[in-house]
């Protein structure tokens, strides 16, 4: 896939990092402000998609990226399931229990397992959406050959 013009590339260089940071901010403050794992994950995926569209990338690199992202996604989802099951397997014997200490409402580190869920769901969503995009592009390249 070919990249775009130099203007787009320069602008993307400036913006992509900021979008990425904003996504991380939304995920980290998911239990305090609007947003959370889903919103932040999709924002991060948007940053990746922007970079791919602007700079382009050759076919083999895309396939490699796709494989790596699939691994990230599987691992993130299995961690989400594990966090949920941890209460069942270890202490309280209850599936999806919020077993960590809750802390003070309004602190960044509070609300027990919720920030962990936010982080891993965010990773999973970002990876999933990026894979969907990548596989569409890879298919287009492949089928035109």
């Amino acid at each position, binding site marked *: 896939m070919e990249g775009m013009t130099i203007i787009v590339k320069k602008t993307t260089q400036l913006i992509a990092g900021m979008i990425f940071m904003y996504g991380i901010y939304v995920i980290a403050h998911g239990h305090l402000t609007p947003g959370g794992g889903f919103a932040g994950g999709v924002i991060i995926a948007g940053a990746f998609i922007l970079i791919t569209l602007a700079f382009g990338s050759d076919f083999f690199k895309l396939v490699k990226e796709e494989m790596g992202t699939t691994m990230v996604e599987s*691992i993130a989802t299995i961690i989400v399931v594990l966090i949920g099951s941890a209460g069942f397997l270890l202490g309280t014997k*209850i*599936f*999806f*229990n919020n077993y960590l200490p809750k802390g003070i409402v309004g602190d960044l580190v509070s609300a027990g397992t919720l920030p962990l869920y936010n982080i891993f769901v965010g990773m999973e969503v970002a990876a999933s959406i990026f894979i969907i995009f990548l596989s569409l592009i890879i298919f287009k390249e492949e089928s035109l050959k």
Partner: protein
Amino acid sequence: MNPLMPLFVVTPLAATFLIMIVGRFVKDFNKYYTSLTLLFLVIISFSCLFNIGENVDVYKVGGWQPINKIPIGIYMVMDGFSAIVVCIINLIGFLVAIYSISYIKRYTSENYFYALFCLMIAGMNGVVLSGDLFNIFVFLEISVISAYSLVAFGVEKNELEASFKYQVLGSIASFLILFGIGFIYWKTKTLNIADIREAFKTGYDKSFYLFVQLLILSGFGLKAAIMPFHAWLPDAHSSAPSPISAMLSGVFIKAVGIYVIIRLFFNMFVITESMAILITTLGTLSMVIGVFLAIGQWDIKRLLAYHSISQMGYVMLSIGIGMILISRGVKQEVAALAIAGGIFHLINHAAFKGLLFLNAGAIEYTIGTRNLKEMGGLAKSMPATSATSFVASMSISGIPPFNGFFSKLIIIVAAITAKFYLLAALAVIVSIITLASFLKFQRYAFYDKSDEDKRPEAKEVPYPMIFSMIVLSIVCLLLSLLAVPVVRDAVLTPAINILMDPLKYSSQIIGL
């Protein structure tokens, strides 16, 4: 709280992700691990079935206790009826997984196949064991999305087209269901099935009630392919790989369609006579039209798919008769008999239709065609397939020593005692036409030797496929035992009692 209940969902999910991660590096990990997982699920589901009795087991996910008797968390619920359906799902799933070990070798990317298969099992288990409306929707989506992708697994023209059709109709069904859930939330402000029942008790507007019931019935009816909504089923079920056809026809339309309809109409809504008559009519229509569409088919898998519509019609018909009697408040023991017939036929259909699709897959595997006219004389070269398919054909057409006979007999007896003579007569006629259709299948596929010399030599399929087919045919024979009163009291009666007496369901969930 039964601690085994979340395992029905978590184990197959864990299997999916392990297959996606480990299966990349270790060859053959996928097939054996899937089979092992499903074997484990079969064992725990049967242990649940034998222990459940008349109880209603509630698992409060997250440990949230009700406040003022109003449930606030998500509840997983297992009772006699859902235990039966879970057993069917996992047993057929296990046999299909064994069958796929040889069958799927001709496709690429086996990892994706097994991962999606596990997701489908997890989704169906989640739907059946859920006591919360929105939770049912979420797990329904897991199972139908994996079904969409598995239908298109061959990525040829037919598969993609069937998958597209299935996706469009399936999405419309999903939105209808979601709208229905929204309506129910609007009225009752709750999502727990037992709690909704409590809220409806206090009184409701008649037109509102009818509208919601229609939304829910058309949504789940689309998923179950009841008559006016059946357009997707023959395409999807005949285009999928054969193990998946067996899964879709044998289990899927029951777990996400018929099961949910029965559960919601008996345990959530208060049964009204107009709705009961509608369900009976739709059941009769599917029963009759399905079989007439089936009789002209020459493609085996399409023929079997149309018979699925017809057999599901039997289930809906007997459930409908039970609902009519309950809503009128007369002859409760006949209503119990009709519901027993419906559930019994649901179990039987899973066994024999699964077996028939596996047979069709075996034939396709060997001679590479699904057209009945191009077959013939396979009885000599494929003895196991021929014998098992004979058992299944006799079962589905209701010939005495096999299981199908008893369930159809119960349905017909119930219809006659409830004085629905026309429906009983139709059921008998449809059964005879089914017999004719399957005699045609047997003759053209296995006995007629007209053009045997034209095609390459056929030989018997590999052992894993034979194993699955023989086990399922034994299951077909064993299921006749459910007609014996002692066995029936142990297995079917708890399920019927739960459906007949909704108070039992809701009081055990809310009262805890």
